[in-house]
């Protein structure tokens, strides 16, 4: 169901590509539609997710919330290690699967991140990044309803991430699965509450700021923290006299 919604959203964005006018960023030809979806997501976030996340943070102590984050993070590491291998990063793949084994046992089913302490740090991979490593361009920026910033490539990647999600095929019980989805969404949102305050202060135009930060962030992730420098002509002159 969620996949269908995602497909529909991508298709919808694609159809509108022809008629949307271009605003500032050449990576964002769908800006008009994207802004509308962004405003919708923002309203949904303010009305529902943020209050719930704040409540969650107020009610549960830090160690509990960290345990919840760790639990989901451990499930996620399985798919991360598959993406490592798909990207040819075999060493990292081995490390990440070792993380899963380590954390599922010594970390008590993933509640503790024993692997980080043992010198195996967490990595960040997903199928969108794998596609990027395979040479697929990101395509236009798109804001997906109820999901947030993405690109055509990364949105397509999300379909695979969704199918490979252990929460998705880990249980046949729809109520349990949905509860897990909800818990994960709340936990993730709670982790970002402080960041939202900073964003609120930083941005003149929140839509543009989120877009440009997100695109830089993705590029950085694709290159595992070492993106090639983008030298800008306008910054070549000497600074001060």
């Amino acid at each position, binding site marked *: 169901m969620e996949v269908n919604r995602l497909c529909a959203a991508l298709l919808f964005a694609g159809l509108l590509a022809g008629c949307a006018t271009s605003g*500032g960023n050449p990576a964002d030809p769908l800006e008009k539609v994207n802004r509308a979806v962004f405003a919708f997501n923002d309203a949904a976030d303010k009305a529902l997710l943020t209050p719930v996340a704040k409540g969650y943070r107020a009610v549960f102590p830090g160690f509990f919330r960290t345990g919840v984050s760790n639990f989901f993070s451990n499930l996620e590491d399985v798919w991360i290690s598959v993406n490592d291998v798909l990207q040819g990063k075999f060493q990292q793949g081995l490390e990440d699967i070792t993380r899963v084994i380590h954390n599922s046992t010594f970390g008590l089913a993933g509640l503790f991140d024993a692997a*980080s302490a043992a010198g195996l740090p967490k990595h960040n991979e997903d199928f969108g990044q794998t596609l990027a490593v395979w040479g697929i361009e990101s395509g236009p920026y798109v804001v997906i309803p109820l999901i947030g910033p993405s690109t055509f490539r990364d949105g397509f990647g999300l379909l695979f991430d969704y199918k490979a999600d252990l929460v998705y095929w880990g249980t046949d019980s729809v109520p349990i699965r949905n509860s897990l989805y909800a818990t994960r969404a709340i936990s993730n949102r709670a982790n970002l509450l*402080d960041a939202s305050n*900073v964003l609120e202060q*930083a941005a003149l135009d929140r839509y*543009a700021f989120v877009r*440009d*930060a997100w695109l830089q962030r993705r590029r950085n992730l694709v290159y595992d923290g070492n993106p090639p420098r983008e030298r800008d002509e306008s910054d070549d002159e000497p*600074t*001060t006299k």
Partner: protein
Amino acid sequence: MKTAFFLLALVAPLACAQTAAPDALVKGITDEVAATIMKDKDIQAGDTKKAADLIEAKIVPHFNFTRMARIAMARNWRSATPEQQKELAAEFKTLLVRTYSTALVNYKGQPIDYKPVRAKSDDTEVTVRSEVKQSGSSQPVSIDYELEKTDAGWKIYDVKVGGVSLVTTYRDTFASEVREHGIDGLIKSLAAKNREPLGTRAGKS
């Protein structure tokens, strides 16, 4: 967008002699600011005003805000008059200081690691890389400082948190503001943003 992103961070800078090596400079400033926050109950409780004062005193002297404004303005910088350039740099500085201050109050003493700097002694531009460790299984957040050598010692002209530049992220916003309202329009928007009350941290803990 998972991790804590801008957030965390920015614990930055000061002290040290002006001739200090760039990595020693950044580490010195960051350590001092981090230590000050850990001793200051008000800042930990979300006092952004006090955090802003700390930034003004310890961090601001080590930044080149003119260059930061110029990078953010890209080609529009040249069409600005010297007077406008000065105002842009000043307003942009205020915006960044205020942003920093909302981030600093979230600092909880996470350990910061510095990577060895690969630079030759005659380099005039250097990147100092650091990593803030997170609690739980979150990925560490990288914080990279771009520095340039000036007559007054090393100056920071960009900070990248998790690969996101605090400077270039403003480019498109600035460009469209200038396109629609001119350079004075942008200065006005920045000034208006800077007059908004600085929020204390919402919600508890």
